[in-house]
């Protein structure tokens, strides 16, 4: 039911206006009426009267119905406009309707006016309602599209009956098209799918058609600019009332960002792993044993050399010591002395706590009858994540052996030099003694009155001194020859042969003093050496035993050889007069050292023996007790 209508009537002829009003009054329409006949009044009424419907005569003195329509349009308001005119050509009517009039009524047929007004108002109301409805739809669609574009998703729908596909604005964009650029179709979709993913996409779809179950998957789209985007797709079937598939509804989500992030993370992980592999490779390629310690001194990583070392040395620790305290393992390694462990412990703690920058020490490690030397370096490990230390063990055995060898050679050289100095001193002293005697005696002979007896004594003394000089020079020559013969050819020398030979050469001495010479060379009878030296050694030691025999006892000289681990040991024992070693021990092998004034000798024998033993690379020692006997022991390395 239409409420009371406000009718604005444009009419300059009063009778016509009254006629229209009367016509309307006769109908059921409730209304109030305003009649205007100028443009100004009309315009004012549009705003103030706010009509529901406008009735207009065509021709007025100041304007016409077309002007009125124009004015109405300019206000932007949509009010039904009905033209009431006397006569009208068909063409004009069409024209006015085109301009926006709702209807027209001829003056001679005014009885149609009420229904025309009602229709126009109703139609107008319906139009208005539809417009509001449409506006709402448009607004929600716009919102949806906005959401799609912002959230980077899109929907699509395929009608399986008509085979018509619809793509949402978001779908167009996701598939790499402008909205409406192409017909929505599977073919056009496939055009932009990454070639590597096409087969997979087709297969997924085919699978889905076999059971009409929802499906999902990921694929890539190549944009026109060549860039690639990753889409996550889901779709499902809509069934009709018979349970048959009617539509497919699909949903695509752009997951490029998370996908790229995933790829980036994967790449980072791979790079980290590669870097870590590289570092492990470097560590493993290093010859030193390397262990990384944490702040507590626990081993957190080791290299290949370390692993090999623990195996080779039977260090019975699981995992090659990882997770074990370094020092605990170190202490377990038998053959490392306690002071080294203490030293290393201190240095290591200082490096880990930052008290010092680096610690380095050398230590030896006795394993399976061979000594190994290591240099140990502790350097701080200070990355952001953890504090600790890197421990390196470098095998320096070769260097150490050559160092020790060098030290030994140096000591030998120093000893040799001291010997030479002593030798020079003794020689000069002993040469000087007879010379001084000759000078003194000849000075007396020249300057003093002496008796013939004294003169003869002096001459004899001079003569003895000259012989003594000659003797010393011969000794000197002999000694120098020993030292110079070191490069002569060695041969196998049999001890028993040497002794038998010497026994024959000094038979008269042996027989005279009833000396017994016994020997036992059952353990070892031969030695590869310079035979003249060995002969001289045996000769001098045997003669020594005879010379310093004891009166009133049965003198026995016993010679014996023993074969030890890596050396030959020879002993020459006698039961002769012996010597007080406390007093003379350090001089026993000295040149021209004599300890018995009543026994002939010039102090050459033992010096010669010592020199020859030294030259053969051996060692000689003596044990003796006065009135008991003497034992010389010689050791030669083999």
């Amino acid at each position, binding site marked *: 039911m239409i409420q009371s209508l406000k009718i604005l009537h444009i009419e300059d002829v009063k009778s016509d206006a009254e006629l229209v009003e009367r016509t309307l009054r006769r109908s059921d329409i409730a209304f109030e009426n305003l009649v205007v006949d100028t443009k100004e009044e009309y315009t004012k009424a549009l705003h103030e009267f706010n009509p529901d419907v406008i009735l207009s005569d065509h021709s007025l003195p100041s304007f016409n119905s077309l002007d009125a329509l124009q004015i109405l349009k300019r206000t932007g308001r949509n009010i039904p406009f009905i033209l009431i005119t006397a006569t009208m050509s068909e063409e004009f009517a069409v024209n006015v309707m085109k301009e926006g009039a709702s209807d027209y009524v001829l003056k001679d047929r005014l009885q149609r006016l009420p229904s025309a007004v009602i229709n126009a108002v109703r139609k107008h109301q319906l139009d208005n309602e539809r417009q509001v409805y449409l506006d709402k739809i448009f607004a929600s669609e716009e919102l949806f599209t906005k959401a799609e574009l912002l959230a980077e998703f899109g929907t699509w729908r395929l009608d399986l009956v008509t085979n018509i596909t619809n793509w949402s604005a978001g779908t167009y964009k996701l598939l790499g098209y402008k909205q409406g650029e192409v017909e929505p179709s599977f073919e056009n979709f496939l055009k932009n799918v990454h070639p590597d993913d096409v087969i997979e996409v087709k297969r997924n779809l085919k699978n889905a058609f076999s059971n009409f179950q929802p499906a999902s998957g990921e694929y890539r789209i190549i944009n026109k600019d060549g860039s690639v985007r990753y889409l996550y797709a889901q779709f499902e079937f809509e069934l009709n009332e018979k349970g048959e598939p009617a539509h497919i509804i699909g949903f695509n989500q752009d997951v490029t960002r998370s996908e790229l992030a995933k790829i980036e993370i994967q790449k980072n992980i791979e790079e980290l792993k590669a870097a870590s592999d590289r570092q492990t490779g470097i560590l493993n390629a290093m010859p030193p044993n390397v262990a990384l310690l944490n702040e507590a001194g626990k081993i957190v990583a080791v290299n290949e050399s370390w692993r090999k070392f623990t195996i080779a040395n039977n260090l019975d620790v699981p995992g090659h010591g990882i997770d074990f305290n370094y020092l605990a393992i170190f202490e377990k390694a038998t053959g490392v002395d306690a002071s080294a462990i203490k030293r290393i412990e201190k240095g290591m703690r200082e490096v880990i706590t930052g008290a010092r920058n680096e610690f380095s020490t050398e230590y030896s490690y006795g394993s399976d009858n061979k000594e190994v030397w290591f240099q140990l370096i502790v350097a701080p490990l200070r990355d952001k994540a953890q504090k600790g230390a890197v421990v390196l063990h470098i095998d320096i055995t070769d260097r150490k052996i050559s160092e020790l060898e060098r030290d030994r050679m140096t000591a030998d050289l120093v000893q040799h030099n001291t010997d030479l100095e002593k030798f020079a*001193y003794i020689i*000069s*002293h002993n040469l*000087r*003694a007879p*010379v*001084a*005697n000759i*000078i*003194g*005696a000849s*000075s*007396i002979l020249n300057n*003093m009155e*002496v008796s013939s007896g*004294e003169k003869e*004594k*002096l001459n004899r*003394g001079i003569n*003895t*001194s000259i012989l003594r000089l000659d003797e010393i020079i011969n000794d000197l020559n002999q000694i120098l020859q020993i030292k110079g013969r070191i490069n002569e050819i060695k041969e196998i020398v049999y001890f028993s042969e040497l002794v038998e030979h010497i026994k024959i050469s000094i038979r008269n001495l042996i027989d005279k003093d009833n000396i017994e010479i016994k020997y036992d060379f059952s353990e070892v009878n031969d030695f590869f050496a310079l035979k003249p030296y060995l002969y001289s050694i045996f000769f001098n030691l045997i003669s020594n035993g005879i010379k310093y025999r004891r009166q009133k006892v049965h003198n026995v000289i016993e010679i014996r050889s023993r074969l030890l681990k890596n050396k030959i040991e020879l002993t020459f024992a006698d039961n002769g007069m012996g010597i007080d070693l406390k007093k003379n021990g350090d001089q026993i092998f000295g040149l*021209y*050292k*004599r*300890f*018995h*004034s009543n026994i002939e000798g010039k*102090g050459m024998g033992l010096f010669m023996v010592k020199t020859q033993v030294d030259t053969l690379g051996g060692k000689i020692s003596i044990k003796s007790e006065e009135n008991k006997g003497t034992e010389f022991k010689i050791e030669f390395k083999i």
Partner: protein
Amino acid sequence: MSTDLKYILVDDDSFNNMICRMILEDTLGEVEINEFTEPEEGLSFIRENIKSPAVLFLDINMPTLTGWEFLGLYDKFNEEVKRHVSVYILSSSLDWRDMDKAKANKYVKGFLSKPLEAETVISIAQGEFQE
């Protein structure tokens, strides 16, 4: 010239002792000279018999007792004895180490190189010896 000085010779080389004796006698005339080729005998002679000023000519290199060992034993003697004895090392050595060692010994008045010379004998007898 002091004639009451006694002379003691300790050297295992008897020829050197003979040369010394002849030089001493020739230079100083009649003097008491006691020769020893065994240093041990020389030591006991000094300990037992020296009660007046004496001059000792002592060799270094001797087989049973070196001159230095000799002085080590002498050190333990009564001060009364040692007060009388002027010790001179008489050695064939020309080595500076021996000379230094002699200088460092509180009993040694001088280091003489063999052979003993008349001038040295005179300066010692007159108490004017200087190295």
